[in-house]
């Protein structure tokens, strides 16, 4: 009854083109934002921030980035971990080289640097396609991780080879370093996620997003109707790497605080983010969020269930998580190749007809 286009008259082009055409969706959107910004920060504690909210927000940014490249533009990338590492190390170098500048600027610049690196590694995509490209992006993954391990300039010649985030403040609150309040951690990630999602959503609705999708559906046909593949593919790589770089910077500076590159940004990370967008739904911003939420919540929930309630040993539960995540990936690819986002779409379709479906 509530979920209807009917009766919601659009009287201007802006109203007709808005992101959420249904009034209920608009209210829901503002309610979600209000809860996220005004309610959760006051209730959050250390455990919830570290185990669920902060990793969810950061991975959601990475998932949006990868989804732009893989879901919208059809270029499968296994280099996400490497690009996150670029973001993290760029942020670290900027933080230590310009200690007086705001960290927000550093994080955005780190995203920009990652975008440049991502574009460079995207160049071969003009000739290499499909999973040849997926394997080629592995070169980025392994080369970048090796580079940050070997060249000591990147970690300021520290003896341990680790990078540690110095304490930085935004509006008087510490957002990095050991004295950060969980709410501050949460809020800075939330602000970045909200902005990234907004930008991504609007990019994918416009000309550039359409040219990505044309390339994804069939690149030769797209070229014939006048889409410039060079421009489309490279912008996809750039925008995607920009988001992934931001998430890498946040992952290092805000979430972990200290990072060893092989451990934090290894190939496993690339797969994790890829799984998020498969489960969430390729080619959907909501799907990126849903997939990230699912893959963050699922291991925590399974651990609570099996270790705390059933009393099983931890290593056993870790193996089960591997098995279940693998099984879920296959299940989703068979039963619902469009992921959680498709379930959401179907639910909305049903809601429109409720309570009188035909």
């Amino acid at each position, binding site marked *: 009854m509530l979920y209807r286009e009917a009766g919601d008259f659009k009287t201007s082009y802006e109203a007709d083109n808005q992101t959420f055409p249904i009034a209920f969706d608009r209210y829901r959107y503002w309610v979600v934002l209000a809860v996220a910004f005004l309610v959760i920060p006051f209730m959050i504690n250390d455990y919830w921030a570290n185990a669920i909210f902060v990793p969810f927000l950061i991975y959601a940014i990475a998932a949006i980035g990868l989804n732009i490249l893989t879901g919208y533009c059809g270029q499968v990338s296994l280099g996400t971990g490497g690009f996150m590492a670029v973001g993290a190390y760029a942020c670290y170098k900027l933080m230590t080289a310009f200690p007086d500048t705001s960290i927000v600027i550093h994080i955005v610049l780190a995203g920009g640097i990652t975008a440049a690196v991502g574009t460079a590694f995207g160049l071969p995509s003009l000739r*290499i396609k499909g999973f040849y490209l997926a394997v080629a992006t592995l*070169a980025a993954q*392994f*080369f970048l*991780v090796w580079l940050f391990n*070997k060249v000591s300039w990147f970690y300021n010649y520290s003896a341990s080879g680790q990078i540690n985030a110095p304490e930085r403040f935004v509006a008087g609150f510490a957002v990095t370093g050991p004295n950060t309040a969980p709410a501050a951690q949460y809020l800075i990630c939330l602000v970045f996620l909200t902005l990234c999602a907004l930008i991504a959503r609007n990019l994918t609705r416009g000309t550039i997003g359409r040219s990505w999708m044309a390339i994804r559906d069939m690149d030769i046909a797209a070229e014939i109707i006048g889409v410039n593949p060079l421009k489309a593919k490279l912008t996809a790589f750039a925008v995607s790497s920009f988001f992934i770089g931001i998430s890498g910077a946040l992952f290092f500076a805000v979430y972990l605080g200290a990072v060893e590159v092989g451990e934090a940004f290894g190939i496993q990370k690339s797969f994790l983010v890829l799984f998020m967008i*498969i489960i969430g739904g390729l080619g959907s911003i909501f799907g990126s969020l849903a997939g990230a939420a699912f893959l963050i919540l699922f291991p925590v929930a399974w651990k609570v269930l099996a270790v705390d309630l059933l009393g099983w040993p931890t290593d056993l539960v870790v193996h089960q998580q*591997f*098995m279940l995540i693998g099984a879920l990936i*296959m299940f989703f690819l068979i039963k619902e190749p469009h992921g959680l986002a498709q379930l959401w779409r179907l639910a909305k379709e049903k809601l429109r007809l409720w309570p009188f479906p035909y």
Partner: protein
Amino acid sequence: MSADFLYGIEVIINGLMAGVLYALVALGFVLIFKASGIFNYAQGVMALFAALTLVGIMEGQVPFAHLLNAIFGTDIHHFGWEVPALLAIFLTVLVMVAFAWAVQHFVFRHLVGQEPIILFMATIGLAYFLEGVGDLMWGSDIKTIALGLPQGGSFWVEDMTASLGGDDFYGFFIDKLDMVATVVAIVLVISLIAFAQYTKQGRAMRAVADDHQAALSVGISLNYIWVLVWSLAGIVAMVAGIMWGAKSGVQFSLSLIALKALPVLMLGGFTSIPGAIVGGLIIGVGEKLFEYTIGAPFLGGATENWFAYMLALIFLVFRPQGLFGERIIERV
């Protein structure tokens, strides 16, 4: 001859041997890819799983003992017997065939006609699943394969070649295990080619590789052929698993050799068995030689981690279909 030059030759020989092992893994990929168009990322994990199963059977471990103990509060670990190596290998082959059937029946039968990239992602899921199952079944501790394969350097080769150089040259150091692996790989490749060329099943396999629908129309069961190629890939994986496992212990890192096989395939082309072998040798020699001449002296070492991918990347830009791959023709 100067010692540096001789060491260079030694590096090349060792690279060739490593390349043979890469080729062995790549072979499993090519088999499945040719017959079903599935790019099987799980090949490396299959090698790990097969090696784990082999060790588990030989030592008489109870499968899923850890899980059973946690659920029922029991304390079981071993049956208390030891299985002889040959019987254990045979049983492992049976397990891999059962696995092939299960994969075909529960997963890929439902994905027929999907885009290649979807199939690829499904095999990544399969890799995670199999890794979890392997650990659950046999535990995740590092195991050693006690098949009685020779270990260590070969003194015979060292003594034979010591006279080539001056006083500071002690002969080529070549691992006996690598030599065995090379022989096994060659035998395996020859028997696979013979199987594909001269048996009825092999002919059916090639027919499916050429054209699914034409093969169906002359009465070849696609399901049967797919189970067959997955079984063959499982057996190849087992051999690779034994060789790598004997070299570095049966552990998680074994599954990463699949990643190393990817650039091998890109060089050789996904559809060519000779390509897989030549690609493996190029990568093996290339990365050892690069590490020896440029990586270790100038770049701080450990370049083996990425050199293969970079080589493949640069190579592909100039020849997107690989060395022996079929020419890619694109139509709207």
